[in-house]
Protein backbone atom coordinates (compact mmCIF):
# COMPACT_ATOMS: atom_id res chain seq x y z
CA UNK A 1 0.00 0.00 0.00
CA UNK A 2 2.82 2.36 0.80
CA UNK A 3 4.34 1.49 -2.55
CA UNK A 4 1.15 2.53 -4.37
CA UNK A 5 1.05 5.81 -2.56
CA UNK A 6 4.61 6.56 -3.56
CA UNK A 7 3.82 6.00 -7.25
CA UNK A 8 0.86 8.32 -7.18
CA UNK A 9 2.88 10.97 -5.43
CA UNK A 10 5.59 10.70 -8.03
CA UNK A 11 3.21 11.02 -10.95
CA UNK A 12 1.65 14.14 -9.53
CA UNK A 13 5.05 15.53 -8.83
CA UNK A 14 6.27 14.75 -12.27
CA UNK A 15 3.31 16.60 -13.72
CA UNK A 16 4.09 19.47 -11.46
CA UNK A 17 7.73 19.57 -12.43
CA UNK A 18 6.82 19.41 -16.10
CA UNK A 19 4.35 22.24 -15.78
CA UNK A 20 6.84 24.24 -13.80
CA UNK A 21 9.36 23.81 -16.58
CA UNK A 22 6.82 24.88 -19.18
CA UNK A 23 5.88 27.89 -17.14
CA UNK A 24 9.45 28.97 -16.68
CA UNK A 25 10.00 28.55 -20.41
CA UNK A 26 6.97 30.69 -21.27
CA UNK A 27 8.01 33.45 -18.94
CA UNK A 28 11.52 33.35 -20.30
CA UNK A 29 10.40 33.35 -23.90
CA UNK A 30 8.24 36.40 -23.31
CA UNK A 31 11.22 38.15 -21.82
CA UNK A 32 13.28 37.03 -24.78
CA UNK A 33 10.75 38.37 -27.28
CA UNK A 34 10.69 41.76 -25.63
CA UNK A 35 14.44 41.95 -25.54
CA UNK A 36 14.61 40.88 -29.16
CA UNK A 37 12.17 43.57 -30.27
CA UNK A 38 13.91 46.24 -28.24
CA UNK A 39 17.27 45.10 -29.52
CA UNK A 40 16.18 45.27 -33.15
CA UNK A 41 14.80 48.76 -32.75
CA UNK A 42 17.60 50.05 -30.57
CA UNK A 43 20.20 48.57 -32.86
CA UNK A 44 18.84 50.40 -35.84
CA UNK A 45 17.74 53.43 -33.93
CA UNK A 46 20.66 54.34 -31.73
CA UNK A 47 22.81 54.94 -34.77
CA UNK A 48 20.69 57.86 -35.85
CA UNK A 49 19.68 59.13 -32.43
CA UNK A 50 21.07 62.51 -31.50
CA UNK A 51 20.25 65.53 -29.39
CA UNK A 52 19.68 67.43 -32.58
CA UNK A 53 16.96 65.04 -33.46
CA UNK A 54 15.10 65.58 -30.25
CA UNK A 55 15.35 69.30 -30.00
CA UNK A 56 15.36 70.82 -33.42
CA UNK A 57 12.61 71.38 -35.92
CA UNK A 58 12.87 69.81 -39.32
CA UNK A 59 14.32 71.82 -42.15
CA UNK A 60 12.61 71.89 -45.52
CA UNK A 61 13.74 68.60 -46.97
CA UNK A 62 13.98 66.68 -43.73
CA UNK A 63 12.19 63.63 -45.06
CA UNK A 64 14.50 63.61 -48.02
CA UNK A 65 17.71 63.71 -46.07
CA UNK A 66 17.79 67.29 -44.91
CA UNK A 67 18.89 68.37 -41.47
CA UNK A 68 16.83 69.09 -38.46
CA UNK A 69 14.94 66.99 -36.03
CA UNK A 70 11.54 65.89 -34.96
CA UNK A 71 10.89 68.31 -32.16
CA UNK A 72 7.70 69.25 -33.98
CA UNK A 73 6.40 65.70 -33.73
CA UNK A 74 7.54 65.24 -30.14
CA UNK A 75 5.89 68.47 -29.04
CA UNK A 76 2.82 67.79 -31.15
CA UNK A 77 2.35 64.31 -29.73
CA UNK A 78 2.82 65.46 -26.15
CA UNK A 79 0.42 68.37 -26.48
CA UNK A 80 -2.13 66.17 -28.22
CA UNK A 81 -2.01 63.35 -25.72
CA UNK A 82 -2.26 65.84 -22.87
CA UNK A 83 -5.44 67.19 -24.42
CA UNK A 84 -6.94 63.79 -25.21
CA UNK A 85 -5.99 62.28 -21.87
CA UNK A 86 -7.53 65.20 -19.99
CA UNK A 87 -10.80 64.79 -21.86
CA UNK A 88 -10.70 61.05 -21.40
CA UNK A 89 -9.95 61.26 -17.66
CA UNK A 90 -12.74 63.78 -17.15
CA UNK A 91 -15.15 61.42 -18.83
CA UNK A 92 -13.94 57.98 -17.86
CA UNK A 93 -13.79 58.51 -14.10
CA UNK A 94 -17.46 59.50 -13.94
CA UNK A 95 -18.42 56.63 -16.20
CA UNK A 96 -16.50 53.99 -14.29
CA UNK A 97 -17.74 55.24 -10.95
CA UNK A 98 -21.27 55.59 -12.23
CA UNK A 99 -21.29 52.00 -13.41
CA UNK A 100 -19.97 50.75 -10.11
CA UNK A 101 -21.65 52.93 -7.52
CA UNK A 102 -24.70 54.62 -8.87
CA UNK A 103 -26.30 52.15 -11.19
CA UNK A 104 -27.66 48.89 -9.92
CA UNK A 105 -24.97 46.25 -9.90
CA UNK A 106 -26.74 43.73 -12.05
CA UNK A 107 -29.02 46.22 -13.71
CA UNK A 108 -29.43 46.53 -17.44
CA UNK A 109 -28.07 50.06 -17.54
CA UNK A 110 -24.69 49.20 -16.06
CA UNK A 111 -24.50 46.07 -18.16
CA UNK A 112 -25.22 48.06 -21.29
CA UNK A 113 -22.61 50.65 -20.36
CA UNK A 114 -19.96 48.00 -19.82
CA UNK A 115 -20.96 46.28 -23.02
CA UNK A 116 -20.69 49.50 -25.02
CA UNK A 117 -17.24 50.17 -23.64
CA UNK A 118 -16.11 46.65 -24.46
CA UNK A 119 -17.26 47.00 -28.04
CA UNK A 120 -15.72 50.44 -28.39
CA UNK A 121 -12.47 48.96 -27.09
CA UNK A 122 -12.28 46.64 -30.04
CA UNK A 123 -13.02 49.12 -32.79
CA UNK A 124 -9.94 49.60 -34.94
CA UNK A 125 -8.22 52.92 -34.63
CA UNK A 126 -8.72 53.62 -38.32
CA UNK A 127 -12.47 53.68 -37.74
CA UNK A 128 -12.03 56.32 -35.04
CA UNK A 129 -9.84 58.24 -37.43
CA UNK A 130 -12.48 57.94 -40.14
CA UNK A 131 -15.23 58.93 -37.73
CA UNK A 132 -13.21 61.92 -36.56
CA UNK A 133 -12.60 62.83 -40.20
CA UNK A 134 -16.33 62.74 -40.96
CA UNK A 135 -17.14 64.89 -37.94
CA UNK A 136 -14.49 67.37 -38.92
CA UNK A 137 -15.89 67.70 -42.42
CA UNK A 138 -19.34 68.13 -40.93
CA UNK A 139 -18.08 70.86 -38.61
CA UNK A 140 -16.00 72.45 -41.32
CA UNK A 141 -12.72 71.95 -39.50
CA UNK A 142 -9.43 71.59 -41.28
CA UNK A 143 -6.86 69.01 -40.25
CA UNK A 144 -5.70 70.33 -36.94
CA UNK A 145 -4.55 69.73 -33.40
CA UNK A 146 -8.16 69.84 -32.26
CA UNK A 147 -9.16 67.15 -34.73
CA UNK A 148 -6.36 64.92 -33.52
CA UNK A 149 -7.27 65.49 -29.89
CA UNK A 150 -10.88 64.51 -30.53
CA UNK A 151 -10.02 61.39 -32.51
CA UNK A 152 -7.45 60.18 -29.97
CA UNK A 153 -9.85 60.93 -27.11
CA UNK A 154 -12.41 58.69 -28.85
CA UNK A 155 -9.80 55.97 -29.06
CA UNK A 156 -8.54 56.02 -25.49
CA UNK A 157 -11.83 56.60 -23.71
CA UNK A 158 -12.96 52.95 -23.77
CA UNK A 159 -9.47 51.80 -22.80
CA UNK A 160 -9.41 54.08 -19.81
CA UNK A 161 -12.95 53.29 -18.74
CA UNK A 162 -12.30 49.59 -18.89
CA UNK A 163 -9.06 49.77 -16.98
CA UNK A 164 -10.46 52.04 -14.25
CA UNK A 165 -13.51 49.82 -14.06
CA UNK A 166 -11.27 46.85 -13.34
CA UNK A 167 -9.62 48.71 -10.49
CA UNK A 168 -12.87 49.98 -9.00
CA UNK A 169 -14.45 46.57 -9.08
CA UNK A 170 -11.97 45.14 -6.63
CA UNK A 171 -12.49 47.81 -4.01
CA UNK A 172 -13.28 45.90 -0.82
CA UNK A 173 -16.84 45.99 0.34
CA UNK A 174 -16.00 47.00 3.88
CA UNK A 175 -14.62 50.31 2.71
CA UNK A 176 -17.86 51.09 0.96
CA UNK A 177 -19.96 49.96 3.85
CA UNK A 178 -18.02 51.81 6.49
CA UNK A 179 -18.22 55.01 4.49
CA UNK A 180 -21.93 54.66 4.01
CA UNK A 181 -22.47 53.88 7.65
CA UNK A 182 -20.66 57.11 8.49
CA UNK A 183 -23.35 58.95 6.59
CA UNK A 184 -21.36 59.88 3.53
CA UNK A 185 -23.25 60.74 0.38
CA UNK A 186 -22.50 58.70 -2.71
CA UNK A 187 -20.45 61.53 -4.13
CA UNK A 188 -18.33 61.85 -0.98
CA UNK A 189 -17.86 58.13 -0.83
CA UNK A 190 -16.59 58.10 -4.38
CA UNK A 191 -14.09 60.83 -3.61
CA UNK A 192 -12.61 58.80 -0.78
CA UNK A 193 -12.51 55.62 -2.81
CA UNK A 194 -10.82 57.44 -5.66
CA UNK A 195 -8.05 58.44 -3.32
CA UNK A 196 -7.54 54.88 -2.23
CA UNK A 197 -7.30 53.42 -5.71
CA UNK A 198 -5.19 56.19 -7.18
CA UNK A 199 -2.24 53.95 -8.21
CA UNK A 200 -4.61 51.70 -10.11
CA UNK A 201 -6.22 54.67 -11.79
CA UNK A 202 -2.77 55.96 -12.56
CA UNK A 203 -1.78 52.80 -14.36
CA UNK A 204 -5.08 52.83 -16.25
CA UNK A 205 -4.37 56.34 -17.48
CA UNK A 206 -0.87 55.36 -18.42
CA UNK A 207 -2.08 52.34 -20.39
CA UNK A 208 -4.48 54.52 -22.35
CA UNK A 209 -1.82 57.14 -22.98
CA UNK A 210 0.57 54.51 -24.24
CA UNK A 211 -1.98 53.35 -26.73
CA UNK A 212 -3.05 56.81 -27.78
CA UNK A 213 0.33 58.37 -28.30
CA UNK A 214 1.58 55.56 -30.49
CA UNK A 215 -1.34 55.24 -32.84
CA UNK A 216 -0.99 56.51 -36.38
CA UNK A 217 -4.35 55.62 -37.89
CA UNK A 218 -6.33 58.02 -35.69
CA UNK A 219 -4.18 61.04 -36.48
CA UNK A 220 -3.47 60.32 -40.12
CA UNK A 221 -6.62 62.00 -41.37
CA UNK A 222 -7.43 64.28 -38.50
CA UNK A 223 -4.35 66.05 -37.22
CA UNK A 224 -2.60 66.94 -40.43
CA UNK A 225 1.12 67.47 -40.38
CA UNK A 226 3.44 70.42 -40.12
CA UNK A 227 7.07 71.28 -39.68
CA UNK A 228 6.42 73.55 -36.75
CA UNK A 229 5.01 73.23 -33.27
CA UNK A 230 1.28 74.00 -33.21
CA UNK A 231 0.52 77.30 -31.55
CA UNK A 232 -3.23 76.98 -31.33
CA UNK A 233 -5.93 74.38 -31.71
CA UNK A 234 -6.55 75.09 -35.37
CA UNK A 235 -2.96 74.58 -36.45
CA UNK A 236 -2.10 71.23 -37.93
CA UNK A 237 0.03 69.15 -35.60
CA UNK A 238 2.80 66.71 -36.31
CA UNK A 239 2.78 63.51 -34.31
CA UNK A 240 5.45 60.92 -33.61
CA UNK A 241 3.74 57.93 -35.20
CA UNK A 242 3.23 59.91 -38.39
CA UNK A 243 6.81 61.16 -38.24
CA UNK A 244 7.93 57.56 -38.05
CA UNK A 245 5.60 56.63 -40.85
CA UNK A 246 6.78 59.40 -43.17
CA UNK A 247 10.42 58.75 -42.43
CA UNK A 248 9.91 55.09 -43.23
CA UNK A 249 8.29 56.16 -46.49
CA UNK A 250 11.27 58.17 -47.58
CA UNK A 251 13.37 57.01 -50.52
CA UNK A 252 16.60 57.61 -48.65
CA UNK A 253 17.85 54.87 -46.43
CA UNK A 254 19.40 57.25 -43.90
CA UNK A 255 16.02 58.80 -43.33
CA UNK A 256 14.47 55.38 -42.91
CA UNK A 257 17.07 54.67 -40.25
CA UNK A 258 16.02 57.85 -38.50
CA UNK A 259 12.56 56.39 -38.23
CA UNK A 260 13.89 53.77 -35.85
CA UNK A 261 15.44 56.46 -33.74
CA UNK A 262 12.08 58.20 -33.65
CA UNK A 263 10.49 54.93 -32.61
CA UNK A 264 13.01 54.63 -29.84
CA UNK A 265 12.18 58.15 -28.70
CA UNK A 266 8.49 57.30 -28.66
CA UNK A 267 9.08 54.18 -26.58
CA UNK A 268 11.24 56.12 -24.15
CA UNK A 269 8.58 58.80 -23.81
CA UNK A 270 6.00 56.17 -22.96
CA UNK A 271 8.35 54.71 -20.37
CA UNK A 272 8.95 58.11 -18.80
CA UNK A 273 5.24 58.86 -18.65
CA UNK A 274 4.56 55.54 -16.96
CA UNK A 275 7.32 56.07 -14.42
CA UNK A 276 6.09 59.58 -13.68
CA UNK A 277 2.51 58.43 -13.25
CA UNK A 278 3.62 55.72 -10.85
CA UNK A 279 5.58 58.23 -8.78
CA UNK A 280 2.79 60.79 -8.74
CA UNK A 281 0.09 58.41 -7.63
CA UNK A 282 2.33 56.99 -4.96
CA UNK A 283 2.95 60.45 -3.61
CA UNK A 284 -0.71 61.37 -3.43
CA UNK A 285 -1.36 58.24 -1.48
Amino acid sequence: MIKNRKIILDRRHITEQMMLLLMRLSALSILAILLFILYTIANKGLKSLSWEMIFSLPEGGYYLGGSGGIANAIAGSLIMIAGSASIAILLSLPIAFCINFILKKEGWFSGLARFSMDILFGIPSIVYGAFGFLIMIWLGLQASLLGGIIAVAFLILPIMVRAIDEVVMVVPHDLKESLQSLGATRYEMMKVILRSILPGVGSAIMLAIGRGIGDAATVLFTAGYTDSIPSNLTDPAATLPLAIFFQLSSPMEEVQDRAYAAALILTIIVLIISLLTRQLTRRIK
Partner: protein
Amino acid sequence: MVLIAITLLFNIKPAVCQQKINGKITISGAFALYPMMIKWAEEFKKVQPGIKIDVSAGGAGKGITDALGGMVDIGMVSRDIYPEEVKKGAFAIPVARDAVVCVISESNPALKEVLAKGITAQVAAKIWISGDYRSWAEAFRIKQQIPLHVYTRSDACGAAEVWAKYIGGKQEDLTGSGVFGDPGLALAVKRDKVGIGFNNIGYAYDQKTRRQISGIRVIPIDINKNGKVDPEEQFYETMDDLTEAIAEGKYPAPPARDLYLVTKGKPTNPAATAFIKWILTDGQKYVKSTGYINLAKTKVEAAIKKL
Protein backbone atom coordinates in the same frame (compact mmCIF):
# COMPACT_ATOMS: atom_id res chain seq x y z
CA MET B 1 6.93 113.88 -68.95
CA VAL B 2 6.42 110.91 -71.21
CA LEU B 3 9.73 109.48 -70.02
CA ILE B 4 8.68 109.78 -66.39
CA ALA B 5 5.35 108.10 -67.15
CA ILE B 6 7.09 105.22 -68.89
CA THR B 7 9.55 104.77 -66.02
CA LEU B 8 6.69 104.81 -63.54
CA LEU B 9 4.88 102.17 -65.58
CA PHE B 10 7.92 99.96 -65.61
CA ASN B 11 8.29 100.37 -61.88
CA ILE B 12 4.71 99.41 -61.16
CA LYS B 13 4.68 96.19 -63.16
CA PRO B 14 7.39 94.27 -61.21
CA ALA B 15 5.95 95.57 -57.94
CA VAL B 16 2.65 93.90 -58.77
CA CYS B 17 4.44 90.66 -59.59
CA GLN B 18 6.28 90.60 -56.27
CA GLN B 19 3.39 91.76 -54.12
CA LYS B 20 4.04 90.31 -50.71
CA ILE B 21 1.27 88.06 -49.48
CA ASN B 22 0.85 86.60 -46.05
CA GLY B 23 -0.92 83.39 -45.48
CA LYS B 24 -0.67 79.68 -45.01
CA ILE B 25 -1.02 76.75 -47.32
CA THR B 26 -1.48 73.13 -46.33
CA ILE B 27 -0.58 70.42 -48.82
CA SER B 28 -0.80 66.66 -48.67
CA GLY B 29 -0.83 63.70 -51.00
CA ALA B 30 1.23 61.53 -53.30
CA PHE B 31 4.66 60.32 -52.30
CA ALA B 32 5.55 60.73 -55.94
CA LEU B 33 5.20 64.49 -55.87
CA TYR B 34 6.51 64.94 -52.35
CA PRO B 35 10.22 65.57 -53.07
CA MET B 36 9.29 68.05 -55.80
CA MET B 37 6.86 69.89 -53.59
CA ILE B 38 9.44 70.23 -50.85
CA LYS B 39 11.84 71.82 -53.29
CA TRP B 40 9.16 74.14 -54.60
CA ALA B 41 8.12 75.17 -51.12
CA GLU B 42 11.73 75.92 -50.22
CA GLU B 43 12.31 78.10 -53.28
CA PHE B 44 8.95 79.82 -53.03
CA LYS B 45 9.70 80.78 -49.45
CA LYS B 46 12.60 82.87 -50.75
CA VAL B 47 10.21 84.80 -52.98
CA GLN B 48 7.31 85.04 -50.55
CA PRO B 49 8.63 84.70 -47.01
CA GLY B 50 5.26 85.62 -45.54
CA ILE B 51 3.58 82.45 -46.72
CA LYS B 52 3.82 79.39 -44.52
CA ILE B 53 3.64 76.06 -46.33
CA ASP B 54 3.04 72.69 -44.65
CA VAL B 55 3.65 69.63 -46.79
CA SER B 56 2.94 66.06 -45.85
CA ALA B 57 2.82 62.83 -47.80
CA GLY B 58 0.31 60.01 -47.36
CA GLY B 59 -0.49 58.84 -50.86
CA ALA B 60 -2.44 60.14 -53.84
CA GLY B 61 -5.69 58.88 -52.39
CA LYS B 62 -5.15 60.88 -49.23
CA GLY B 63 -4.34 63.94 -51.31
CA ILE B 64 -7.65 63.80 -53.14
CA THR B 65 -9.64 62.99 -50.02
CA ASP B 66 -8.04 65.79 -48.06
CA ALA B 67 -8.46 68.31 -50.85
CA LEU B 68 -12.08 67.43 -51.58
CA GLY B 69 -12.87 67.30 -47.89
CA GLY B 70 -11.51 70.76 -47.37
CA MET B 71 -8.86 69.46 -45.01
CA VAL B 72 -5.95 70.87 -46.98
CA ASP B 73 -5.64 73.64 -49.51
CA ILE B 74 -3.84 71.60 -52.16
CA GLY B 75 -3.73 67.87 -52.78
CA MET B 76 -0.89 66.16 -54.66
CA VAL B 77 -2.16 63.47 -56.98
CA SER B 78 -0.01 61.15 -59.06
CA ARG B 79 -2.66 59.74 -61.34
CA ASP B 80 -5.47 60.85 -63.59
CA ILE B 81 -8.46 62.36 -61.87
CA TYR B 82 -11.60 60.27 -62.10
CA PRO B 83 -14.84 61.79 -63.43
CA GLU B 84 -16.53 61.15 -60.08
CA GLU B 85 -13.88 63.24 -58.39
CA VAL B 86 -14.37 66.06 -60.88
CA LYS B 87 -18.05 65.90 -60.08
CA LYS B 88 -17.19 66.38 -56.43
CA GLY B 89 -15.36 69.55 -57.33
CA ALA B 90 -11.83 68.42 -58.11
CA PHE B 91 -9.96 71.16 -59.93
CA ALA B 92 -6.71 69.71 -61.27
CA ILE B 93 -3.59 71.47 -62.50
CA PRO B 94 -0.79 69.42 -64.03
CA VAL B 95 2.58 70.56 -62.74
CA ALA B 96 5.21 68.00 -63.70
CA ARG B 97 5.76 64.51 -65.05
CA ASP B 98 7.43 61.44 -63.74
CA ALA B 99 7.21 57.70 -64.30
CA VAL B 100 6.95 54.28 -62.79
CA VAL B 101 9.64 51.72 -63.55
CA CYS B 102 9.76 47.96 -63.22
CA VAL B 103 12.27 46.71 -60.66
CA ILE B 104 13.94 43.46 -59.70
CA SER B 105 16.48 42.48 -57.11
CA GLU B 106 20.15 42.99 -57.76
CA SER B 107 20.79 39.48 -56.45
CA ASN B 108 18.58 37.84 -59.04
CA PRO B 109 20.44 34.75 -60.34
CA ALA B 110 19.45 35.53 -63.92
CA LEU B 111 20.05 39.25 -63.62
CA LYS B 112 22.12 39.83 -66.72
CA GLU B 113 19.83 37.83 -68.99
CA VAL B 114 16.68 39.47 -67.77
CA LEU B 115 18.14 42.95 -68.01
CA ALA B 116 19.16 42.21 -71.56
CA LYS B 117 15.73 40.92 -72.53
CA GLY B 118 13.64 43.71 -71.13
CA ILE B 119 9.94 43.62 -70.30
CA THR B 120 6.85 44.39 -72.35
CA ALA B 121 3.33 45.33 -71.40
CA GLN B 122 2.05 41.94 -72.51
CA VAL B 123 4.54 40.05 -70.35
CA ALA B 124 3.81 42.32 -67.42
CA ALA B 125 0.09 41.69 -67.82
CA LYS B 126 0.69 37.96 -67.70
CA ILE B 127 2.76 38.44 -64.55
CA TRP B 128 0.55 40.86 -62.65
CA ILE B 129 -2.96 40.53 -63.95
CA SER B 130 -3.57 36.98 -65.09
CA GLY B 131 -0.83 35.37 -63.04
CA ASP B 132 -0.07 33.05 -65.96
CA TYR B 133 3.67 33.43 -65.62
CA ARG B 134 4.90 31.85 -62.43
CA SER B 135 8.55 31.46 -63.21
CA TRP B 136 11.26 33.61 -64.69
CA ALA B 137 11.70 31.07 -67.46
CA GLU B 138 8.14 31.53 -68.66
CA ALA B 139 8.18 35.28 -68.38
CA PHE B 140 11.56 36.04 -69.86
CA ARG B 141 12.34 32.94 -71.84
CA ILE B 142 15.52 32.12 -69.96
CA LYS B 143 16.79 28.68 -69.06
CA GLN B 144 17.02 28.87 -65.29
CA GLN B 145 14.05 27.44 -63.46
CA ILE B 146 13.44 29.89 -60.70
CA PRO B 147 10.07 30.88 -59.26
CA LEU B 148 8.70 34.37 -59.79
CA HIS B 149 7.55 36.35 -56.74
CA VAL B 150 5.24 39.18 -57.69
CA TYR B 151 4.84 42.32 -55.60
CA THR B 152 2.41 45.18 -55.85
CA ARG B 153 1.21 48.11 -53.72
CA SER B 154 -1.38 47.43 -51.05
CA ASP B 155 -2.28 51.08 -50.52
CA ALA B 156 -4.44 52.81 -53.09
CA CYS B 157 -1.85 54.81 -54.96
CA GLY B 158 -0.96 56.49 -58.20
CA ALA B 159 2.01 54.25 -58.94
CA ALA B 160 0.00 51.05 -59.02
CA GLU B 161 -2.83 52.66 -60.91
CA VAL B 162 -0.54 53.94 -63.65
CA TRP B 163 1.42 50.68 -63.89
CA ALA B 164 -1.87 48.84 -64.18
CA LYS B 165 -3.01 51.26 -66.85
CA TYR B 166 0.14 50.51 -68.85
CA ILE B 167 -0.50 46.78 -68.77
CA GLY B 168 -4.20 47.00 -69.39
CA GLY B 169 -6.07 47.02 -66.10
CA LYS B 170 -6.72 48.85 -62.89
CA GLN B 171 -4.89 48.68 -59.58
CA GLU B 172 -7.39 46.21 -58.20
CA ASP B 173 -6.56 43.79 -61.02
CA LEU B 174 -2.94 43.54 -59.95
CA THR B 175 -2.05 40.35 -58.14
CA GLY B 176 0.94 39.70 -55.94
CA SER B 177 1.91 40.41 -52.37
CA GLY B 178 0.69 43.83 -51.41
CA VAL B 179 3.23 45.94 -49.62
CA PHE B 180 2.48 49.32 -48.15
CA GLY B 181 4.19 52.32 -49.65
CA ASP B 182 6.83 52.89 -52.27
CA PRO B 183 9.86 52.25 -50.09
CA GLY B 184 8.14 49.16 -48.71
CA LEU B 185 7.86 47.71 -52.18
CA ALA B 186 11.47 48.57 -53.02
CA LEU B 187 12.61 46.90 -49.83
CA ALA B 188 10.57 43.78 -50.51
CA VAL B 189 12.04 43.41 -53.98
CA LYS B 190 15.53 44.15 -52.70
CA ARG B 191 15.25 41.34 -50.19
CA ASP B 192 13.62 38.78 -52.45
CA LYS B 193 16.11 37.67 -55.06
CA VAL B 194 13.35 36.33 -57.27
CA GLY B 195 11.03 39.24 -56.69
CA ILE B 196 9.63 41.66 -59.23
CA GLY B 197 7.85 44.93 -58.55
CA PHE B 198 7.51 48.56 -59.60
CA ASN B 199 8.46 51.93 -58.14
CA ASN B 200 8.30 55.63 -58.77
CA ILE B 201 11.54 56.90 -60.25
CA GLY B 202 12.19 58.85 -57.09
CA TYR B 203 12.29 55.66 -55.09
CA ALA B 204 14.30 53.59 -57.55
CA TYR B 205 17.06 56.12 -58.03
CA ASP B 206 19.17 57.89 -55.47
CA GLN B 207 18.61 61.65 -55.60
CA LYS B 208 22.19 62.46 -54.74
CA THR B 209 24.11 60.01 -56.87
CA ARG B 210 21.48 59.94 -59.64
CA ARG B 211 22.06 56.23 -59.98
CA GLN B 212 19.83 53.28 -59.16
CA ILE B 213 19.73 52.55 -55.46
CA SER B 214 21.73 49.60 -54.34
CA GLY B 215 19.91 46.32 -54.17
CA ILE B 216 17.47 46.85 -56.97
CA ARG B 217 17.77 47.14 -60.70
CA VAL B 218 15.37 48.59 -63.21
CA ILE B 219 14.26 46.31 -66.02
CA PRO B 220 14.24 48.29 -69.25
CA ILE B 221 11.06 48.29 -71.25
CA ASP B 222 11.45 46.52 -74.57
CA ILE B 223 9.67 49.19 -76.54
CA ASN B 224 9.92 47.68 -80.01
CA LYS B 225 9.10 44.26 -78.62
CA ASN B 226 11.91 42.52 -80.43
CA GLY B 227 12.81 40.40 -77.42
CA LYS B 228 15.90 42.28 -76.43
CA VAL B 229 16.91 45.67 -75.15
CA ASP B 230 18.47 47.63 -78.01
CA PRO B 231 21.02 50.37 -77.36
CA GLU B 232 18.36 53.05 -78.07
CA GLU B 233 16.20 51.49 -75.38
CA GLN B 234 19.02 51.56 -72.88
CA PHE B 235 18.63 54.80 -70.94
CA TYR B 236 18.43 53.70 -67.38
CA GLU B 237 21.98 54.27 -66.24
CA THR B 238 21.32 57.53 -64.49
CA MET B 239 18.22 59.40 -63.40
CA ASP B 240 18.94 62.18 -65.88
CA ASP B 241 19.19 59.75 -68.81
CA LEU B 242 15.85 58.34 -67.88
CA THR B 243 14.12 61.67 -67.36
CA GLU B 244 15.40 62.86 -70.72
CA ALA B 245 14.02 59.77 -72.41
CA ILE B 246 10.69 60.41 -70.76
CA ALA B 247 10.71 64.04 -71.84
CA GLU B 248 11.46 63.01 -75.39
CA GLY B 249 8.60 60.59 -75.30
CA LYS B 250 10.85 57.57 -75.74
CA TYR B 251 9.65 56.01 -72.52
CA PRO B 252 6.01 55.05 -72.95
CA ALA B 253 3.33 57.03 -71.19
CA PRO B 254 1.81 55.33 -69.23
CA PRO B 255 3.84 54.38 -67.17
CA ALA B 256 5.09 57.91 -67.51
CA ARG B 257 2.41 60.23 -66.25
CA ASP B 258 1.42 63.72 -65.37
CA LEU B 259 1.44 64.81 -61.77
CA TYR B 260 -1.39 67.03 -60.62
CA LEU B 261 -2.21 69.48 -57.90
CA VAL B 262 -5.86 69.34 -56.93
CA THR B 263 -7.97 71.91 -55.16
CA LYS B 264 -11.66 71.98 -54.38
CA GLY B 265 -12.95 74.19 -57.10
CA LYS B 266 -10.78 77.04 -58.23
CA PRO B 267 -8.41 77.92 -55.40
CA THR B 268 -9.73 80.76 -53.27
CA ASN B 269 -6.82 81.04 -50.85
CA PRO B 270 -4.72 83.85 -52.39
CA ALA B 271 -1.54 82.29 -51.05
CA ALA B 272 -2.39 78.99 -52.73
CA THR B 273 -3.20 80.69 -56.03
CA ALA B 274 0.06 82.60 -55.94
CA PHE B 275 1.98 79.43 -55.17
CA ILE B 276 0.42 77.42 -57.97
CA LYS B 277 0.98 80.27 -60.43
CA TRP B 278 4.61 80.43 -59.36
CA ILE B 279 5.01 76.66 -59.77
CA LEU B 280 3.74 76.91 -63.33
CA THR B 281 6.12 79.74 -64.17
CA ASP B 282 9.33 80.19 -62.17
CA GLY B 283 8.93 76.90 -60.40
CA GLN B 284 9.29 74.89 -63.58
CA LYS B 285 13.03 75.51 -63.70
CA TYR B 286 13.60 73.34 -60.64
CA VAL B 287 11.82 70.34 -62.08
CA LYS B 288 14.66 68.74 -63.98
CA SER B 289 17.28 69.05 -61.26
CA THR B 290 14.99 67.40 -58.74
CA GLY B 291 14.64 64.42 -61.04
CA TYR B 292 11.32 65.09 -62.66
CA ILE B 293 10.26 65.92 -66.16
CA ASN B 294 8.88 69.21 -67.34
CA LEU B 295 5.44 69.41 -68.79
CA ALA B 296 5.07 70.32 -72.42
CA LYS B 297 4.87 74.09 -72.80
CA THR B 298 1.36 73.90 -74.20
CA LYS B 299 0.12 72.06 -71.16
CA VAL B 300 1.66 74.65 -68.86
CA GLU B 301 0.05 77.51 -70.72
CA ALA B 302 -3.33 75.82 -70.69
CA ALA B 303 -2.97 75.28 -66.96
CA ILE B 304 -2.14 78.93 -66.30
CA LYS B 305 -5.16 79.96 -68.32
CA LYS B 306 -7.31 77.64 -66.21
CA LEU B 307 -6.37 79.56 -63.11
